[in-house]
């Protein structure tokens, strides 16, 4: 059963904490009320409430087929998330959600899927990887391009070899690395020009810092991918998560309820507008 009031946080308990990098951690949450529904679609987010501190929108990074818990991967960057980083198992959080428009997996049927992630942007895309692996026959290839600052900033590293074994084409690029690093060095954008892709049967999903997404649009369009086949996950100051408060307004859209996932053709005219 989902909370009837979308503005009312429901108590959840942390059952597992995992340190991903020095400032990124993953928490697994189960509801105190076992009747609580935890269905979600890849790309959606929850509002997590640290009691007495504040509330933040956090993408769901777990497997949507396993509805027994919510998994969230969080970077400790602000007051709320820094406090969440020191929480331990059995700690309580308030949770509202899930909210938002998911990744368009229905439009990806029989197509090759290209995921492009920067930093912690891999978190909202990880559910797409799980969904693909659970239904491989319904899609074409899955290629993941992942960029991070350095090898020690990569999240979900432990899953990379398993994903590759299961047929995911995973390319990882870092900005800087020492001699022990065997992957690419350079920006993730550099991996696009030589991608083996057929623009007519490809769908691209991008998540990362907005500046990275701006740099990625040109090489993708240069490879013949149509704007309508590129999906990006946007981030703004989301507070109510249901389009009431207006904090996340982006032109004529509200990121929380019209997004966070948008096709690029809906945003291309406003993407470089600094006022937004």
């Amino acid at each position, binding site marked *: 059963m989902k909370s009837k009031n979308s503005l009312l946080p429901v108590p959840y308990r942390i059952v597992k904490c995992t340190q991903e990098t020095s400032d990124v951690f993953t928490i697994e949450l189960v509801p105190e009320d076992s009747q609580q529904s935890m269905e979600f679609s890849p790309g959606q987010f929850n509002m997590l409430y640290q009691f007495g501190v504040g509330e933040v929108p956090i993408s769901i990074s777990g497997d949507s087929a396993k509805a027994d818990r919510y998994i969230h991967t969080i*970077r400790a960057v602000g007051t709320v998330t820094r406090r969440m980083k020191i929480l331990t198992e059995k700690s309580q959080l308030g949770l509202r959600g899930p909210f938002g428009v998911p990744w368009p997996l229905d439009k990806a049927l029989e197509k090759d899927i290209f995921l492009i992630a920067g*930093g912690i*942007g891999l978190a909202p895309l990880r559910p797409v990887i799980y969904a693909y692996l659970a239904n491989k026959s319904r899609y074409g290839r899955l290629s993941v391009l992942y960029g991070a*600052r350095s090898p020690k900033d990569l999240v979900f590293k432990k899953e990379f070899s398993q994903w590759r074994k299961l047929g995911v084409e995973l390319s990882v690029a870092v900005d800087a690395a020492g001699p022990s690093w065997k992957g690419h*060095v350079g920006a993730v954008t*550099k991996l696009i020009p*030589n991608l083996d892709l057929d623009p007519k049967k490809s769908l691209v999903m991008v998540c990362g810092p907005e500046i990275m997404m701006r740099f990625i649009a*040109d090489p993708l369009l240069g490879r013949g991918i149509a704007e309508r086949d590129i999906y990006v996950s946007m981030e703004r100051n989301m507070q109510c998560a249901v389009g009431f408060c207006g904090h996340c307004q982006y032109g004529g859209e509200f990121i929380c309820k019209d997004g966070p996932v948008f096709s690029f053709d809906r945003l291309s005219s406003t993407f470089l507008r600094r006022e937004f």
Partner: protein
Amino acid sequence: MMKKISDLLNDCVFFSHFPQEYLNLIGGCGKNRVVKADQYLAHEGDAAQAFYVLKKGRVAIETHMQGHGALLVETLGAGEIIGWSWLVEPFKWKFDVRVLEQAHLIEFDGGCLRKKAENNPELGYLLMKKIALVIAGRLSATRLQLIDIYGKGGH
């Protein structure tokens, strides 16, 4: 039967919009080469007489910093081209190029390519446009790399 260089170029994204007659012309300046891991294709400051298409393998673009040794700037993989210094005066390599995984390359004689480009301005312009595209892409990627953005913000 061994493929001719001009036929190999048909498989390369960089040469994808070149008419066959130009591929035949350019192919005359190229040869196949295999270079083992840890060998250098170029050293910073040396005359840049070659231009490479990397068919297979991986190379590192490096620079040397006093007291630190080699610094890895970026890596290049299959399908990418190596070197633009052969086209830009004073025709000297700006970085070291070290092979990380055995490289299967098409090596072009830069002097031969320049001569053909000068004699055939249309080919020269096409070549210049394609190289400019590669340089612009790398400049853009380098700026992104310098901004070091991946760690900022959060989800």
